[in-house]
């Protein structure tokens, strides 16, 4: 009877398990523990973290470090990953052609067309010609309404108004004849005077129809075919708004400019190709597939992509202490995303969703000083320490302790920085791959697409479901059901969309509704994990055919997520694969696979390497 411990040092967590191995090689698992990894994995800095986790595990088993006969440590995979994001389009409005910021409370309903005049100039207008009135914030809403009423009484037809303050409803409520009014136009002084303009406000819950339609604008302004072609981007930019203003200026335009993002050169082991980053993620990934396996990647110097890759390299170099020239990018994952950006030339602080590309890059590091780490542990514990087994193989052994699995099996290890996959054939051969892009990239996508600028909050949104605090005593959950409370919710959550974290509901300070946040969250997970799961399995499965495997076991920290395993299982279902979250030893869920695999492997080799690991840990399944 000997007491051994398996220790798995990961990028972010260190896991351990303690087990007794009988004389016949039978394994009895006693306990497990997990904690944060101290320092970069594979270095001597890990010793502190490993000791902490080991003590926890041993204490849970009622043993002390002195009782141990052997500590097994995994051969840490020498890969780490970094990420960067860059917008590749921008919207520019020239000559103040349009206002499309969608204020929450526009006034009146309908469409008004006329010449743009200042409110102060209304008394001087001759009757007969329709006008659109511009009102700055120094004018009180009562005075503005009175001036418009006076002008209308004189026969000057005021057909619409553009207001700087949040006054549209207030003015509209005081008019004898209702007109459409758009408010909260911060740079109202820049609206060109004397030009023909149109103001449109739709009913509650509807969107504008005339100004969001190119031919509608052409009808209003009497445009010819060529001019209509020019105005088409304006109409497109206004789709979905409840209110808008379009001014007809001589050369006014709105352009959707693509920022030259630069070329990404992917150097494969056999061939190399380059691809324009603004071609989008699909094109980049197709190119990566053509040159696979990737040896390195380079960005065109002086462009966005050049900057992105050098940021990744700098970060990796700092982290690992490897010279910059020796950093090799072994995998990239490109993801299309949208980032809200302020529109250049906008009069009301308009935001447009601009296209962006996020890149995750995987860097292979030189092998860490594992021997030094083992020596450090040996000194601290006074126990034999053995570096055993390739991480992927150990993970497969651990995964096979999940009830209901069998060879050939594939594992997907979803971590924070990388997505790893390994396949074990019926003969026992193990092939593994490490891909860029995992939990951290999802967090970054959520942060950028919602415009949060708060990675901690984005992390919470990723990990927990949403709800809306409809009163102090009930939450509307994201599946539509309601949960009641006996004690009032915290005051800062009232009327807000909240994340249901372990520490209670946390408010999300944004204008986004619950549905929108949920959609962004699921889409980010799909774009990273589902894409990577298929990509990883294609690379490890013999012949690249996913139908060749029967079982896929999902492991790792992100496998604990409440929806990622289901998203992956859904997408793999079409290949006829049994896919699910692992349940290591039937009790540990997706955790502790490598640590368990280390012990199982040790027991098998100690017995002469003839046994099957499944028999040791799951006798009941036989």
């Amino acid at each position, binding site marked *: 009877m000997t007491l051994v411990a398996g220790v798995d040092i990961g990028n972010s967590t260190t896991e351990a398990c303690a087990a007794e191995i009988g004389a016949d090689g039978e394994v009895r698992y006693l306990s497990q523990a997990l904690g944060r990894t101290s320092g970069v994995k594979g270095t001597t800095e890990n010793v502190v973290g490993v000791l902490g986790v080991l003590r926890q595990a041993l204490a849970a088993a009622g043993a002390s470090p002195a009782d141990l006969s052997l500590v097994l440590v995994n051969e840490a995979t020498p890969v780490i990953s970094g990420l960067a994001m860059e917008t590749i389009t921008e919207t520019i409005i020239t000559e103040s052609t349009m206002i499309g910021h969608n204020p*929450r*409370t526009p006034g009146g309903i309908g469409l008004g067309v006329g010449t743009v005049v200042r409110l102060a100039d209304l008394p001087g207008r001759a009757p007969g010609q329709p006008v659109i009135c511009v009102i700055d914030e120094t004018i009180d*809403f009562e005075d503005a309404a009175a001036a418009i009423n006076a002008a209308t009484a004189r026969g000057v037809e005021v057909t619409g108004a553009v207001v700087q303050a*949040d*006054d*549209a*409803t*207030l003015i509209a*409520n005081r008019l004898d004849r209702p007109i459409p009014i758009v408010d909260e136009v911060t740079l109202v002084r820049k609206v060109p005077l004397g030009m023909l303009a149109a103001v449109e406000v739709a009913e509650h819950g509807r969107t504008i129809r005339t100004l969001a339609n190119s031919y509608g604008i052409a009808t209003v302004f009497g445009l010819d075919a060529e001019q209509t072609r020019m105005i088409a981007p304006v109409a497109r930019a206004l789709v979905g708004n409840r209110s808008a203003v379009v001014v007809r200026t001589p050369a006014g335009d709105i352009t959707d400019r693509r920022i030259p993002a630069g070329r990404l050169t992917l150097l494969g082991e056999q061939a190399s190709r380059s691809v324009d980053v603004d071609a989008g993620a699909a094109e980049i990934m197709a190119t990566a597939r053509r040159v696979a396996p990737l040896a390195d990647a380079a960005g065109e110097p002086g462009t966005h992509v050049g900057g992105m890759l050098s940021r990744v390299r700098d970060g990796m170099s700092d982290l690992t202490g490897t010279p910059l020239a020796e950093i090799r990018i072994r995998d990239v994952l490109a993801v299309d995303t949208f980032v809200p950006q302020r529109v250049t030339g906008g009069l009301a602080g308009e935001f447009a969703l601009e296209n962006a590309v996020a890149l995750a890059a995987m860097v292979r590091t030189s092998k860490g000083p594992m021997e030094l780490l083992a020596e450090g542990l040996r000194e601290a514990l006074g126990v034999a320490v053995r570096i055993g087994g390739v991480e992927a193989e150990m993970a497969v052994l651990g995964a096979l302790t999940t009830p209901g699995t069998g060879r050939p099996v594939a594992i997907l290890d979803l971590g924070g920085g990388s997505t790893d996959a390994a396949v074990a054939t019926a003969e026992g051969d193990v092939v593994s791959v490490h891909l860029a892009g995992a939990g951290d990239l999802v967090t970054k996508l959520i942060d950028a697409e919602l415009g949060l600028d708060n990675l901690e909050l984005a992390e919470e949104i990723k990990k927990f479901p949403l709800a809306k605090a*409809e*009163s*102090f*005593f009930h939450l509307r959950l994201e599946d539509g059901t309601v949960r009641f409370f006996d004690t*009032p919710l915290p*005051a800062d959550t*009232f*009327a*807000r*969309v909240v994340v249901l974290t372990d520490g209670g509901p946390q408010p999300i*300070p944004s*204008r986004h509704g619950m549905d929108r946040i949920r959609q962004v969250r699921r889409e980010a997970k799909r774009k990273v994990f589902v894409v990577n799961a298929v990509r990883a399995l294609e690379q490890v499965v013999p012949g690249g055919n996913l139908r060749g495997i029967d079982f896929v076991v999902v492991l790792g920290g992100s496998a604990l997520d409440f929806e990622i395993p289901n998203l992956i299982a859904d997408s793999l279902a079409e290949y006829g694969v049994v896919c699910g979250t692992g349940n290591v030893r039937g009790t540990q869920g997706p955790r502790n696979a490598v640590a368990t695999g280390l012990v199982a492997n040790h027991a098998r080799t100690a017995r002469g390497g003839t046994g099957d690991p499944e028999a040791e840990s799951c006798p009941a399944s036989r």
Partner: protein
Amino acid sequence: MNATTTGKRVLELTERGVAAPGVRADEIVIGLSPAFGDFFTKTIVDIPLAEVLREVLAGVEEQGVRARVVRFRHSADLAVIAHRAAALSGSGIAVGILSRGTTMIHQKDLVRLSNLELFPQAPLMDTDTFRKVGRNAAQYAKGESPQPVPSRNDYMARPRWQAKAALLHIKETEFIRAGAEPVELDVRIRAAQAE
């Protein structure tokens, strides 16, 4: 009825009897302190109370929500006024305003000493802030998620204004009538030159 003339607008508050709890979900209640628009005509920094009430009402109206104005005579404590006002509000949301300008947005289910938004430094309250208070209160009533009105803080406000604030508070407490019921008010704000 009492009419107060300050600056260019006149505030007329007409009493309409004991205020009853509201039933409309689209209303908020604005709770006034005992001497608001009565003995006091302006805030601690001389903003006419006619302007204060007009801006809060405008902020509410812009959101398409209705407001009832109620005077509380039984207390000059802002939390008491705002919380009682919230209990009378059909939406459960209320704004409480003291004569010197201190303001609070309250909700009926909260404990009295809590609040949705509090503006404790009366000297920093300007007309724009009062408009935003009305706007946010109305948005809470609609079930929207307003960004809290930026709360300003001035370290000098306390030493500079504390003595005056104390005097104003003592004066306001002189108008307290123990056990008095809240009174519904009709509000008219008109231009002074019309007289």
